[in-house]
């Protein structure tokens, strides 16, 4: 069987290692690039180089940023006294698309997952405590994922914050039925959460 030259094979392997791209798609993308004009194809290489050299973590909230501060931390209209704690920058993007939160964030860059060897020191909890030290924050909203590790991470932070900053209010995102979903498809846990978290109408 004929095989590709080493550089083509290398390109295909690089694409195939990306999430959601199989070998067939990787081949299609590689041959598409081969057909393109050099300046067009190299725009992809430049874009990759750009994000890897220019994107870093915001020095306050650990969101992805091109500067020292991310665009949320540097926005004067955001309420700096309310901080929503989340696991990943992509959770921040998801919450921002809802457009209803006017506070700021703290990105943990992970969760405490003891079985996977992810310990409290591997997430940005110390940086969060340092932010609280400055005395401006009056509410922390726990927005970790509603699973066992996310709940454990939230409870660990609750202990740390509660012990050292008893005046800071601690809340967590509501859980229950997804809007636009059907009750008949919800599992037992979701339904129990929805009942206990019911709201006055």
């Amino acid at each position, binding site marked *: 069987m004929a095989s590709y030259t080493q550089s083509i094979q290398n390109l295909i392997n690089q694409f195939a290692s990306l999430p959601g791209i199989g070998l067939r798609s990787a081949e299609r993308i590689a041959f598409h690039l081969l057909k393109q004009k050099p300046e067009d194809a190299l725009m992809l290489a430049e874009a990759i180089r750009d994000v890897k050299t220019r994107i870093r973590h915001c020095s306050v909230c650990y969101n992805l940023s091109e500067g020292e501060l991310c665009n949320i931390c540097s926005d004067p209209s955001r309420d700096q006294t309310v901080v929503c704690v989340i696991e990943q920058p992509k959770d921040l993007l998801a919450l921002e698309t809802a457009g209803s939160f006017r506070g700021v964030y703290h990105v943990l860059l992970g969760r405490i997952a*003891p079985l996977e060897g992810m310990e409290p020191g591997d997430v940005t909890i110390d940086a969060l405590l340092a932010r609280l030290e400055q005395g401006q924050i009056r509410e922390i909203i726990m927005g970790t994922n509603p699973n*066992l590790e996310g709940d*454990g991470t939230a409870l660990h932070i609750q202990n740390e914050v509660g012990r050292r900053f008893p005046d800071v209010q601690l809340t967590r995102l509501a859980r229950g*039925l997804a809007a636009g979903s059907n009750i008949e498809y919800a599992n*037992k846990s979701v339904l129990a959460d929805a009942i206990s978290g019911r709201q006055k109408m």
Partner: protein
Amino acid sequence: MPLVADRCICLRKIEFSETSQILTLFARQGGVVRVIAKGAHRTTKVGASKFGGGIDLLDVAEAVFSHAPHRELPPLTEWRLTEGHRELRRNLRAIYLGTYAAELVTTLVHEHDPHVELFDRLEQSLREVATARREQAFLAFTLDLLRETGLMPELNACINCGQPMSRVARAAFAIDRGGVACGDCAPNFSRRVGIDPRLLRVVQTILTLPRLAGQPQRLPGLTRNQTDPLNRLLAEHIRFSSARELRLARYILAPSA
């Protein structure tokens, strides 16, 4: 490939790709099995997801998967949640004890080796650790796990002179010998941890309690002052016997957890 239906507890979950998870399950009839859950995060517009809203650690469900011991990772096809542990999730100590119980099962139980009674004990114990009875319930589960896997250490009498622990004032656990020694014999063993003999009598009490559906009845209430030394001793024993690290041991022995 034949499909099997079995009641399962999720012991471990590893994100494998954007859409798949590799799960280590404790199946009631089939023992510890590893399966792949493809499309675990996908949901339809009406909120129906393939596995009823996702699969989480410690969840109990009626599951269906391919039975293929020769195959590396048989696919999971159905997951109907029966217990999502809402109470356990509200308490950090309960989360750590429950996760530690799962780690102990994956450490000590071989794949495809059925342990029906142990499964029932884990299911009961996960409910119990969510309550104020969590310390004694967890200790009782660990003892049952050791007994069921043939790794119960000698905690009743000195491994050197045979003196019963009920009659000694001081004792130590000899880690590389898997048993306790009286105060006189303890210096013969270099790898040892001191243990209060009164706590060893607590263990004997738990092991001889009457049982209902496998579950020990009228467990004595225990505090962490009592269970911490025993959990530490048993963790050393399990580490030595399995030659494996126990990641959760440090969490459950930390003073703040």
